[in-house]
C-alpha cells in the first residue's frame, strides 16, 4: 500500500479513539461535587453529643417544672393552713 493511503487508513484509529472519548463524555457522571458537598452529613459524634444535651435539657426542664409544682403546692397548703387557723 502506498504510504499516503496507509497514513490515511491509519488515521481511522484516531477517529475511533475520538469517537470513544466523546461517547464516554456523554455518560452520566452522577452527582456533582456541589451536590455531594450540599448533602454532606454532620459529624455523627457531634450529633450524638447534641442529642445527649437535648435529653439532659429536657430532663432538667421537666424537673424544674415538677419542683415548681411542689413549691406551689407547699405554698397553697401553708396558705390554707394559715387561713384556716385565722378563720
Amino acid at each position, binding site marked *: 500500500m502506498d504510504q499516503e493511503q*496507509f497514513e490515511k487508513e491509519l488515521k481511522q*484509529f484516531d477517529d475511533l479513539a475520538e469517537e470513544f472519548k466523546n461517547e464516554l463524555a456523554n455518560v452520566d*457522571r*452522577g452527582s456533582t461535587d456541589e451536590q455531594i458537598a*450540599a448533602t454532606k452529613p*454532620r459529624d455523627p459524634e457531634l450529633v450524638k453529643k447534641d442529642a445527649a444535651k*437535648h435529653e439532659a435539657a*429536657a430532663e432538667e426542664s421537666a424537673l424544674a417544672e415538677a419542683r415548681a409544682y411542689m413549691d406551689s403546692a407547699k405554698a*397553697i397548703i401553708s396558705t390554707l393552713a394559715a387561713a384556716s387557723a385565722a378563720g
Partner: protein
Amino acid sequence: MRYLVILIALVALTGCVTGPVAETYNLQKIHGDEAHKLAEVATRQTMARYSSSMASAWRKWKRHEAKVKALKPSGSLTPEQAQIWAAKQGDTLVKGAEERDDLLNELDTKRALELEDINKLYANQMVVLASIVKGWAIQGKITSGQMAGWMEVAKFGAVAYIENRNAKRLRREAEEAAAREAEAEEG
C-alpha cells in the same frame, strides 16, 4: 377571705406551669436539615444511577473495542507498515481502556462516597429522632401529631436504607458480570 386566698394560690400555681424552662438545643433544626439532605440524595437515586452509568461505560467500551479490532487495511501492507498498524491498534485499545478505567474509578469513588454519606445521614437521623422523642416523653409532650411526624420522617431513613441495600446488590451483580466478561474475553 378564704376563697380569695385560694384563688390567689391557684393563679400562682398556674404561673409556675409556664415557668422556668431549661435551655433547649435546636435538634429539630438539625433533624430538618439532615432529613432534607437524605431526601435529596434519595431523590437523585444515587445508587441506581451510578450502576447504570458504569454499565453504560462498559457497553460503550465493548463496542469501541470491537470496532478497533475489526479495522483492517484495504490493501496489503509492507512488513514495516504491518508493524506500525499493529502498534497503532494496540495503542488505541490501551488508551481506550485507560479512559474507561478512569471513568469507572471516578464513578466508583463517587458511589462509595455517597453511600457512606447516606449511611451517616441515616444514622444521624435515627439518633436525632430518638433523642427528640425521648425529650418529648420526659416532658410529657408527645402528641399523636408528633408521633405521626416521627413515623413520616423515619420513612426517609428507611428509603435510604433500602437504596443502600439495593446498591450493594447492584454493585455485586455488576462486578460479577464484569468478571464473567473478563473470563469470556480470556477464553
